[in-house]
């Protein structure tokens, strides 16, 4: 509504974007899990399948051991065939379960994300226009798209994979201990080193990752700001300098990324070395046992496989750290938006507007968009059922604010606004807005058909009603000439329609809802005489037998109104009819000379 956010949108990174987050925050996690709750079944199934899948991998070295010790060594060809078939069977079984696991965890993830997006959007819709005055649109879009997407990764792969890694480790340990506990201890002797390495790695990665995020936020905000200010860069020939600045920020971003990759590059080989070391220990110690005859070659074989298997999930777990951290940071931002309370609240026990007649009273209303900068001061006026009131005044007099207040887009600071004697704050916004139609200067047409733009997608409105409304305002004649008539597509916000046609559509839109109160902010844009006559006639029909508040720019509208309110610098200065006010030779007289007199000459 008001352009007060203009020019601020491009500046600086928002503090929100720099939330770096911990890898695990129990409060956030608890709240996140509340979104998982409806899909408890999936979670239970996923965990169960995970346990099974995790066991199937470690089962294979055990089967190999049987194949070697019981059949190969004893030249039992038939037995070998059977065990091979079983081995093959477990692979198939694992593949099938893996399919269900992947499918259903993704399904769950997508469902959670869907719920979250719906909830976010519903919340954003509830926010007061005050919030949108101050928040760049891009930031809200990022919350609903990117941040939610990074949660998808957490729900669909992150959490499930973490479970699966943990189960694999547990199963391997169970198999190993069951087979040969002594050798197990030998193989685990490298574990302290591994734990220490992981610990170090995690700390370093966390630091470097923080840096990466910070540099990325810097890069984004630099881009955003300097693309917005491109004309200034070009005007002052600063392309080279800004390219250098950008290169510096980009370099820092690159270095940050390389640093984090460096830790991975060091950590992975270390895990490899430790794992090879463990295998070497097994071969040395276990091999000795085999030679001494205290252990079979099959066990040795199985242990080598187990040891190799054991290190992979541990390595993966440390990698999951990133996903967790990103997701936590995203969820923190999402919850911050969800917790934003810049909302025009409905009353707890709303009064109903029964037999609504359409009386409007402003009583000593004070209003400021920003603290103490009052744009309306002590405004009192009333409009009785069926009356038309024209509000006139110079730009910045506060005319648009009156519209915003009557629709409760903003709440007033002092005083009260009543409809049929009931304070606006005592009824629901929906009840209120259902009874008010508003035609704004800037007409916003949605993508869709002409008909859906008139009915605003309300399915209770029939085609006949739409056509009737269009006929009343004189829009039918041009609409029926369009290639598809009422089903003609509205392209690019109605770029193919003329200004006058768009206005007539917006009139039909207001009329089709048959509101008790009509608010009309007349457009100032000039149209050809023919269209002007059409619009004047349409307005007359719109205002008939309806409580109307018009921010008037047309002399004809003003002259036909029951009462003219002259607003000046947020205060009501004069009230009366056209003739009364003219003879007063006050502000209205001057405004008339300024804005309306020319229309009379035409």
């Amino acid at each position: 509504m008001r352009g007060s956010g203009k020019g601020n949108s491009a500046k600086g990174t928002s503090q929100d974007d720099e939330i770096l987050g911990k890898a695990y925050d129990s409060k956030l996690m608890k709240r996140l899990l509340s979104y998982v709750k409806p899909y408890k079944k999936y979670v239970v199934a996923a965990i169960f399948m995970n346990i099974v899948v995790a066991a199937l991998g470690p089962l294979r070295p055990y089967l190999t051991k049987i194949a070697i010790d019981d059949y190969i060594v004893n030249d039992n060809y038939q037995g070998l065939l059977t065990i091979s078939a079983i081995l093959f069977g477990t692979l198939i079984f694992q593949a099938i379960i893996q399919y269900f696991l992947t499918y259903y965890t993704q399904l769950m993830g997508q469902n959670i994300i869907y719920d979250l997006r719906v909830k976010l959007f519903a919340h954003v819709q509830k926010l007061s226009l005050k919030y949108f005055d101050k928040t760049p649109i891009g930031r809200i879009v990022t919350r609903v798209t990117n941040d939610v997407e990074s949660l998808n990764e957490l729900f669909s792969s992150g959490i499930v994979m973490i479970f699966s890694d943990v189960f694999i480790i547990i199963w391997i340990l169970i198999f190993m201990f069951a087979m040969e506990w002594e050798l197990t201890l030998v193989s685990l002797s490298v574990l302290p080193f591994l734990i220490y390495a992981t610990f170090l790695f995690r700390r370093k990665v966390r630091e470097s990752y923080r840096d990466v995020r910070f540099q990325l936020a810097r890069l984004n905000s630099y881009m955003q700001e300097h693309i917005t200010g491109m004309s200034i860069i070009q005007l002052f020939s600063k392309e080279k300098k800004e390219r250098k600045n950008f290169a510096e920020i980009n370099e820092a971003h690159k270095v940050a990324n390389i640093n984090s990759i460096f830790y991975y590059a060091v950590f992975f080989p270390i895990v490899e070395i430790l794992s090879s070391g463990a295998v070497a220990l097994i071969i040395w110690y276990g091999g000795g046992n085999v030679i001494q005859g205290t252990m079979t070659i099959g066990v040795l074989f199985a242990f080598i496989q187990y040891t190799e298997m054991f290190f992979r999930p541990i390595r993966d777990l440390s990698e999951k750290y990133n996903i967790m951290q990103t997701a936590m940071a995203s969820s923190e931002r999402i919850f911050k938006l969800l917790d934003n309370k810049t909302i025009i609240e409905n009353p707890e026990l709303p009064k109903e507007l029964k037999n609504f007649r359409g009386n409007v009273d402003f009583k000593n209303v004070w209003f400021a968009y920003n603290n103490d900068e009052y744009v309306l001061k002590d405004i009192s006026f009333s409009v009785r059922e069926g009356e038309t009131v024209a509000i006139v005044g110079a730009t910045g007099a506060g005319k648009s604010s009156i519209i915003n207040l009557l629709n409760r887009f903003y709440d007033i600071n002092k005083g009260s606004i009543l409809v049929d004697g009931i304070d606006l704050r005592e009824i629901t916004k929906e009840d209120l807005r259902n009874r008010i139609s508003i035609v704004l200067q800037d007409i916003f047409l949605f993508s869709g058909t002409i008909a859906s733009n008139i009915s605003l997608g309300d399915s209770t409105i029939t085609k006949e009603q739409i056509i009737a409304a269009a006929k009343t305002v004189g829009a039918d004649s041009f609409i029926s000439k369009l290639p598809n008539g009422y089903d003609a597509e509205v392209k690019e916000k109605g770029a193919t329609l003329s200004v006058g046609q768009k206005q007539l559509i917006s009139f039909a839109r207001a009329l089709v809802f048959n509101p008790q109160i009509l608010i009309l902010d007349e457009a100032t844009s000039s149209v050809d005489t023919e269209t002007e006559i059409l619009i004047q006639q349409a307005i007359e029909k719109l205002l008939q037998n309806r409580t109307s508040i018009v921010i008037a720019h047309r002399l004809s509208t003003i002259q036909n109104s029951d009462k003219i309110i002259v607003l000046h610098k947020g205060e009501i200065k004069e009230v009366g009819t056209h003739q009364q006010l003219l003879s007063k030779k006050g502000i209205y007289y001057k405004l008339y000379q300024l804005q309306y007199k020319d229309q009379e000459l035409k």
Partner: protein
Amino acid sequence: MVSRLFDVTSGRLLIDGQDIKSIPLNVLRKNIGMVPQETFLFSDTLENNIIYGVENKDSELLNKVASISQLDKDVDQFAKKYDTVLGERGITLSGGQKQRTSIARALAINPKILVLDDSFSAVDTKTEEEILIKLKEFMKDRTSIIISHRISTVKDADNIIVLDQGVIAEQGKHEDLLKIGGIYYDIHYKQLLEEELQREG
């Protein structure tokens, strides 16, 4: 178009008799101080914004252009003076302060041609008058193009061009245009009325 952010569709635009397209862009733009209609400032310090088009820091220049654009008194109010950061992380300037910073930025490159595109819309008339007086001195013997809706801004110009729907409708000095009694006269009369309106209440 004077800064060649856009090129002419047809016809020619000459500067000192030279076609604008034959002048290297950076040479052209280094000589034109442009104050665009929509003020855009970077979220940087006030100083860096003012001396944006200047290669080296120069506090004398900074003080000079700030004084011409009447920004110096405002800056005195800020705790960090010219090191005050603008934007989301710093302070938010008022519309008038922004416009005056934008004017100072254009003056700082010591332009041969100054273009003020509706640059006083958020500045009150009294401050505007003071800036215009100082500008006249600063831009002596240099070219200034002032685009404005306010008659008071342009009335002292050597030549006033009245544009209507993309066509030059009237041209001349303030007094001459008033005598014609056309569009310029009409605007002048209405603005006097508007000023009267403003004083009321």
